[in-house]
């Protein structure tokens, strides 16, 4: 029997790294094949080879048993391979139909001679989109403008885009990263429908639970090599994690009962605008006590970013009050917030958390460079900064050749460790951790989770913002769910049920009312 897609002995080296080392990977007809692995394990390289972005140094690719050479993404599409990227490749002011035909425009017959001025055949494409959408249960309105669509709908547009180009093999790169649990479940149903009608799906992810729930077959990569394949029936989360990391991993964070003390952070009726002057945070009130972790669950883009920025002085407060240990900090500058012993692990580590061109050493001192012992008067004492950086690199196991290496050349996990080391080794009364483990490997996640719990146990108040429900549930002592700028409900973590949180994240209240 031939495979839908078969790659054998794929090797690809980059200067200094062997990203793929004799990798074998085969997808059967009509199966959902999950490809699991940490960042840097070589998943992306393999997919980029299959999609024609890279040429392998050696190895062979077969489609339906026929050896092929895939020279470009265009070629991949011609051979029936479609890819849905993690970051959607859509032009937001255009309609669904326009996006789908982009690059493969249908022209109204008779106008072809006009070349660039020929008329686009919207009608024909829209008809085809409706057909596909009906056939595979992909609900999409062809005339809707993409920027008005929810993330889940945009993803369906991406899938239709691939199907429109006659893809038989779909590669979905981290498709659930931006979805609510319910939306993710919908996606799995769509995936089932697709394979039911003969398509094959490669599903790249790092979420173990989803893999077990949705895949027919699971392949795991580690350090450029294919570790092996298992059927979901023969695996559990621990086994998969062990295959990914190569050792036993603590999936559940080990933490003692919280012993909350006095209130550290009080937010009352907070209102914050986003960049487009829309009310992003609307009448949010919450309290975080010393020694507890309050998790803010919610799908990305429901005001969490703006909330964190307002709390840290990076975004002006439009209404309401923020109190830090009874002192009002609603209009404090970022520096005053820092000096009131607030630590902040920002959502976008490369934009806010680090200066990528600076060394590890300089980034370790990013917020404290002006304080003794790191500076005396105007002059920086680099020997003190060096010493501190060396100590932190060791203590937080930052893998870097040298403290003078630029932070931009480290892996994502190590970059995040630099931030965590910097933020948690100052005296901390309040820790605001926004998506602290996004895009990190299991080993780093484990480490950072442990550090956050340690901070709590040392008496810090922790506000954890995350779009990963698993993370919220395993770390938090109390969970607040944010939807469209409001906090719908705050629950004790021990009473919180996954399904209920998922519904709240989608704006559905307990009594079934939709907000």
């Amino acid at each position, binding site marked *: 029997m031939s495979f839908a897609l078969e790659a054998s002995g794929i090797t690809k080296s980059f200067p200094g790294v062997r990203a793929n080392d004799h990798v074998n990977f085969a997808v059967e007809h009509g199966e959902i094949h999950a490809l699991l692995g940490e960042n840097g394990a070589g998943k992306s390289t393999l997919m980029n080879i299959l999609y024609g972005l890279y040429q392998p140094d050696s190895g062979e690719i077969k489609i339906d048993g026929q050896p092929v050479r895939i020279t470009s993404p265009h070629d991949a599409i011609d051979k029936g391979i479609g890819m849905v990227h993690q970051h959607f490749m859509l032009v937001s002011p255009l309609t669904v139909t326009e996006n789908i035909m982009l690059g493969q425009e249908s022209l109204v017959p008779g106008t072809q001679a006009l070349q660039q001025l020929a008329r686009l055949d919207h009608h024909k494409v829209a008809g085809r989109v409706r057909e596909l959408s009906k056939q595979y249960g992909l609900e999409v309105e062809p005339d809707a403008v993409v920027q008005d669509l929810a993330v889940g709908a945009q993803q369906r547009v991406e899938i239709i885009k691939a199907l429109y180009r006659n893809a038989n093999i779909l590669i979905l790169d981290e498709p659930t990263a931006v979805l609510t649990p319910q939306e993710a479940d919908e996606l799995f149903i769509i995936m089932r429908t697709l394979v039911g009608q003969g398509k094959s799906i490669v599903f790249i992810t790092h979420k173990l639970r989803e893999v077990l729930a949705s895949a027919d077959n699971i392949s795991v990569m580690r350090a450029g090599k294919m570790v092996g394949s298992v059927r979901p029936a023969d695996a559990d989360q621990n086994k998969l994690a062990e295959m990914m990391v190569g050792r036993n991993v603590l999936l559940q964070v080990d933490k003692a009962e919280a012993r909350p003390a006095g209130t550290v952070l009080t937010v009352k009726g907070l209102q914050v605008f986003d960049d487009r002057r829309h009310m992003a945070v609307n009448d949010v009130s919450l309290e975080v006590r010393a020694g507890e972790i309050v998790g803010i669950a919610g799908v990305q883009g429901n005001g969490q970013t703006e909330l964190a920025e307002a709390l840290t002085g990076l975004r002006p407060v439009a209404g309401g009050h923020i109190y830090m240990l009874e002192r009002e900090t609603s209009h404090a500058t970022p520096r005053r917030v820092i000096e009131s012993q607030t630590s902040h692990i920002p959502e976008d580590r490369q934009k806010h958390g680090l200066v*990528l061109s600076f060394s590890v050493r300089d980034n370790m001192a990013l917020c404290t460079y002006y304080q003794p012992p790191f500076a005396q008067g105007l002059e920086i004492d680099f020997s003190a900064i060096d010493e501190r950086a060396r100590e932190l690199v060791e203590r937080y196991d930052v893998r870097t050749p040298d403290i003078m290496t630029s932070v931009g050349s480290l892996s994502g996990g190590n970059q995040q460790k630099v931030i965590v080391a910097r933020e948690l080794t100052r005296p901390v009364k309040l820790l605001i951790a926004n998506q602290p483990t996004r895009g990190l490997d299991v080993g780093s996640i484990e480490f950072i989770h442990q550090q956050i719990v340690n901070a709590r146990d040392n008496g810090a108040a922790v506000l954890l913002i995350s779009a990963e429900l698993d993370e919220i549930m395993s770390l938090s002592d109390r969970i607040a769910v944010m939807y469209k700028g409001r906090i719908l409900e705050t629950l004790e973590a021990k009473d919180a049920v996954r399904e209920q949180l998922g519904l709240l994240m989608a704006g559905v209240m307990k009594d079934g009312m939709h907000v």
Partner: protein
Amino acid sequence: MSNIPVARANFSWRRLAGDFWQLIKMPALAIILAFAVGVVVILLTSRSLTTVGEAYYGLLRGALFKQRGFSETLVATIPYIFLSLAVAVGFKTGLFNIGVEGQYTIGSVCAAWAGVAFSGLPAIIHLPLVLLAGALGGAAWAALPGYLKARTGAHEVISTMMMNYVAFRLAEFLVDGPLRDPLSSGVQTSAISPAAELWKLSAYPARLQDPLNALMVALVAALLVIVLARALLKSSRFAARMQSAARRRSLYIGAGLLVGVLCFVALPPLSKAWWPFTDPYDRLHSGLFLAVLAAVGVWWLLWKTTLGFELRMVGANPSAARYAGVSITRSIILSMAISGALAGLAGTIEVIGVSICGCLPLIFSSGYGWDSIGIALLARNNPFGILAASLLFGAMRNGADLMELNSGVSKYIISLIQALVLLFVSAPAIVRWVYRIKAAPKQEDDAKLTTGWGGPL
């Protein structure tokens, strides 16, 4: 994830040399390539190899070997150093200060005013006063666009360029109006007090005979020794041996005092007895020392101070700088002011160092400012690189005349070569292609200049 051992950097000369070569490789190759293309262009226009030889030989002789050739090269280098330092300070903060020419002009006007208005003061007071006036003038002229950028988002490329024209016209108005020397037939300011002049190197023996002047030199020397000794003692090798900060302090202050006293007592008679610079027509002046000091100062500011750390942070990633508690507004205004102060100093030093009439004439701007943007780029904003690159540009500027005379090749070929140098520096892919060098791994930019178009930061 790879297992990279956490190692400490070990010092080695070999590594230092390697790093140095990495640092200068691309600019050096770009310069060689530009001169090579220059050969082709001269060949195309003259069709004779001897012309190429004559041209480059003339350039070299004019820049270095003819009588006072090297001195004149240094004279041209001095304003280049100040102005490209000014551009570099802006670049490092992510600001493209194209207005150094205007700040230079304002600096020269302020200096001329202070040089005339406070006539009668001794040099020890008047000279620093004039330098301060020029620096402040330039600083204010640059801080204004900085303020506009920080507050309203007005892009500094536009506003500083516009400010240039305002500066030129303002200078013309002042020189032709309130500051004009009523007794002179030329349009120029009154003569600047000799006390406010920067001494030519040949003038030292005569000047030093005044005890106040000797005191000034002694103070500067003492200060220099203190700063140098302090830096040396702080460097790790000495610091390890001498733990006590108090002992270190008494050591470097003592050294400074000693040198100061020695200078004050011994320099006037010694210089009278023997002095290396005897040619009274040699225009090389003390501005050279100030320029080198300025380069060291800018290096210290950018890499050794909290302010420099902030400026570089703002230049490399303003979002992260804000996150770290740095005020972007303050940093932008300060950076522009420092940049403007350096440009203003360039104007000041030209007026009190080399101005032929001993005053500020109507037409003074000389295009140094535009060239210095290129110098800063060539030197990648490194203050010591700027010293070298300024020398190169000064030499080319100075050698051009003799080149034209020698070979009949237009001296504007120099501008062409300079432009090519910049082209090759900013498009390293060309240089790599010519020399078959493999691309270096992608580096994050030290400063991003493409941000901040529109909207306050």
